[in-house]
């Protein structure tokens, strides 16, 4: 039993190091891609995907939301989705809009 716990602890520690390494690699790719001679729209799209990957990694594995109680997932995911929709809607309404420049 104690051996199982020790093995499990070792496995989880190794898993966290692996997640950290993946997130670090994604960050390096994020910075590097901004220096490549690619269309701006493509760079923005790739950066958004990488941002979601990093954010999901932090929330699911470092914050342990993956596999946690449904109520805990709900009280975070619902306002998070609301926040995302709010940002997208405001950008849709006001992107490139300078009429309120004053």
């Amino acid at each position: 039993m104690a051996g199982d716990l020790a093995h499990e602890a070792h496995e989880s520690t190794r898993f966290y190091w692996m997640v950290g390494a993946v997130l670090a690699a994604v960050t390096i790719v994020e910075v590097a891609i901004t220096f490549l001679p690619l269309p701006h729209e493509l760079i923005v799209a790739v950066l958004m995907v990488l941002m979601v990957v990093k954010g999901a990694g932090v929330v699911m594995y470092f914050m342990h939301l993956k596999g946690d109680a449904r109520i805990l997932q709900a009280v975070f995911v619902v306002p998070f989705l609301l926040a995302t929709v709010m940002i997208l809607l405001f950008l849709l309404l006001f992107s490139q809009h300078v009429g309120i420049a004053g």
Partner: protein
Amino acid sequence: MAHSSHPGRIGTANVGSLGVDSRKLGVWTFIGSEALFFAALITTYLVFAPVNMARADAQNPKEYLDIWLTSVLAALLLASSLTMVLALAAVRRGDMKLFRVWLLATVGLGFSFLGGQVYEFTELYHHGATLSSSLFGTTFFVLTGFHGTHVLIGAIWLLSVFFKVQRYPDSPETVMDVELGGLYWHFVDLVWVVIFTVIYLI
């Protein structure tokens, strides 16, 4: 599952009718509200970005923001998230020595981030970007300033957890205390993941 919670080794005195620790439910709810708070600040920055460029006092963010410095800051916060989860893993298995090492490393990385942000703000100020110099200055400093304030609060929170564990090493609440402080800390890192991409890289 290797990376899941271990509810059996956590004090159950605060478990409510929903079957989860009420303090953990409260912190997750708070984090949900914080997501909306930062979304409002990020939206404000993005909506006013084209307005800023159309005004006579326009300041182009590309001419002011230093990607290399903020990449280092991103690495510091990312590393602090890793050390935080390692501190939680250590306290769960009762390894208090490693717990102290990882938790203090987390706090140290947090203060290093703050030092870097103070340096960034000082440089921007000397180059003419201030809270009132332009819409860019206003929206940028309000957003990143609030984030920095959250980092400071998180570091103080984690330090208070460290000293509480030092004072009451046998408390059944220890694991949950560390987990709650960690949740807030990871959220602060999560916000920087978004700010780093949306404000600095794009």
